[in-house]
């Protein structure tokens, strides 16, 4: 093929694509376009797919009820492949190319920070369903969240261990290079010592570690009453298995929302009998809204929702609610409506957006019982 002919063909293809994307994706006047960037592939793909299931349910409900201000809502999904670079790119695309009036995403705090930076610069509101790092919303007028922060969660976990479980000698084991894990460990330690408790072992481990025997022997030697392990579920499965080898009872462990996965039950459900963790939600939480959500979710998908799905649902619901409250559907007005949110009844509790754009809402404590997650109690964040 000659060069000129090749050039001609590629030019034609590019033009065709440009036209197709221009007509296909730009918001039509009878549609409101919302962009969602999620990790739909890569190591965190379950984060993305779970969240999408929740968003889809919220979308179905809002459109079945006639949409917003007479217009149908459309959610465009973009896959950031579990990387921060792609998160930045995809958010830019969603705003510039697709003309999204608001953005939903991400789960991992690092990617929400990247996407949030773009949204804030372009003055398009973003609601993250599950990013708990404090920095995600800090100083960013256009970024909101529907979940609690690590600071709130660490504090609640400390109060739960000290006041409810009445334990005063605690060991802490966490991932040293992970913002989520070390951040949660820091706030827990600060709150726990302030309450008068004592941290007897304080161990960080490198990311990806799989051999915990030495840490667990060390912890066992100090004989703590409780062990706070704010790590993700895959690490926790291994820790629980090796803890038995070291002679530590599984019920001594307390964790954070990173534990929330059916994989934890599958891999170490029997070993962790009696352990607690703080979470956004539990399938059997006694809130009317949660029960309605669980029922319709099950009807749509055929399985129980994970907490990520519940939060994806809440993030989308809150956004749609704010769009309805806004005087007109523009990024600026939606932002104002989101900031004014008060007592919004979501599936993960009733929440109020505070001046830092964080959600004030109850935190649930879940217990591992008979190889299942069971609701134990709820504490208000302070």
């Amino acid at each position, binding site marked *: 093929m000659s060069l000129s002919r090749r050039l001609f063909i590629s030019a034609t293809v590019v033009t065709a694509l440009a036209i197709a994307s221009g007509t296909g994706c730009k918001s039509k006047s009878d549609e409101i376009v919302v962009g969602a960037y999620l990790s739909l*592939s*890569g*190591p*965190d*793909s*379950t984060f993305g797919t779970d969240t999408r299931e929740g968003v889809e349910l919220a979308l179905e409900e809002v459109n079945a009820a006639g949409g917003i201000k007479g217009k149908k809502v459309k959610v465009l999904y973009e896959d950031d492949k579990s990387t921060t670079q792609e998160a930045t790119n995809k958010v830019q695309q969603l705003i510039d190319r697709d003309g999204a009036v608001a953005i939903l995403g991400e789960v991992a705090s690092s990617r929400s920070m990247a996407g949030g930076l773009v949204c804030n610069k372009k003055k398009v509101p973003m609601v993250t369903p599950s990013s708990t790092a404090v920095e995600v919303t800090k100083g960013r007028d256009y970024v909101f969240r529907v979940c609690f922060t690590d600071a709130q969660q660490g504090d609640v976990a400390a109060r739960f261990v000290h006041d409810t479980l009445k334990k005063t000698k605690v060991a802490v084991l966490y*991932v*040293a*290079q992970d913002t989520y894990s070390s951040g949660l460990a820091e706030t827990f330690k600060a709150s726990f010592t302030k309450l008068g408790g004592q941290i007897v072992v304080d*161990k*960080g*481990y*490198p990311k*990806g*570690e*799989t*051999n*915990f*025997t*030495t*840490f667990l*022997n*060390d912890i066992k*030697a100090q004989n703590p009453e409780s062990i706070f392990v704010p790590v993700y579920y*895959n690490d926790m*499965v*291994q820790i629980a*298995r*090796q803890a*038995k*080898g070291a*002679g530590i009872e599984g019920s001594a462990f307390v964790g954070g929302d990173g534990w929330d996965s059916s*994989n934890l039950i*599958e*891999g*170490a459900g029997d*070993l962790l009998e009696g352990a607690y963790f703080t979470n956004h939600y539990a399938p059997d939480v006694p809130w009317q809204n949660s029960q309605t959500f669980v029922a319709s979710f099950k009807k749509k998908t055929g399985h129980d929702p994970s907490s990520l799905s519940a939060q994806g649902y809440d993030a989308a619901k809150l956004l749609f609610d704010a769009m309805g409250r806004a005087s007109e559907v523009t990024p600026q007005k939606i932002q104002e409506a989101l900031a004014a949110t008060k007592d919004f009844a979501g599936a993960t509790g009733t929440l109020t957006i505070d001046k830092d754009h964080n959600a004030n809402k109850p935190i649930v404590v879940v217990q591992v019982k008979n190889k299942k997650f069971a609701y134990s109690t709820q504490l208000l964040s302070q």
Partner: protein
Amino acid sequence: MPSWLHQLIDALVTGVAQGAMIALVALGYSMVYGVLKLINFAHSEVFMLSAYLGLFAIMALGGEAHPFLAGVGGTLLAMFAAAIIGMTVERIGYRPLRKKGKGPLARVTPLVTALGVSVFLQNLAQLLFTAAPKPYPQLIPAGSSVALGSFHLAKSRLIIFVAAIVVMLLLNWIVKKTWFGKAMRALSSNEEAARLMGINTSRVISTTFALGSGLAALGAVLFCLDQSQATPTMGTKIGTYAFVAAVLGGIGNITGALLGGLLIGVLGEMLKLTSYSGGVEVIVFLVLIAVLLWRPAGLLGSTRAEKV
């Protein structure tokens, strides 16, 4: 006995077992480098794939219902399958390049292919098995141990260590005493001359890949039975450690791989007792740099031609 001494010996035992496992993987890097002067980056992904294959084989053989049969049978099946994967990777990825490339880039091209194969296998595993970790059945019940005086040595650790030592003795015998070992060493010192002497070099290279991959599979299954679950990204970390162990001990040297593995394993566990536990990797790599500055060929590496 004071408790700190008890803890120290505990950490030492754990470190030795961990090191033996790293050494099993390191051998694969070392042997391939010995014959081909190629760093086979795909080796860590063969390790990961064999963890999955081992899991499926163990489940097919009855899992926790027949722990002994499933454990031994599953491991052997995984080793066999890994050997085939290793040979296939060599056949498709490296052999065509070796036949074509004799130019100045003959060393670089296969290296890039190795990286490509590694990325390919990792992503393939993510597609096939999903990113969610798959827990291994507990064939060796957690907490079962052998009493050794006042010590309780976890059974899984003991099995890892014994298996690694037996395999390494066997390998040493193969390399030193058998015809295949001789051919391997001949190939390592001069490929052209080996071929002229009537050695089927392609077959020897293939067998080297099979052997290395089989050892990685043994390491993978033992690793998962002891402490882990299979994930598509598990190869990266252990692969890095194993590669470092191979270089530290002197790449191309079998005893060196064992020594390097043990050193890294024990050092890692000892550091966990200190307050620098989060920075294990930083210190391990500092040690690597220090050793290489002192002995550029690694602890047991020689600058002589023969390296297997």
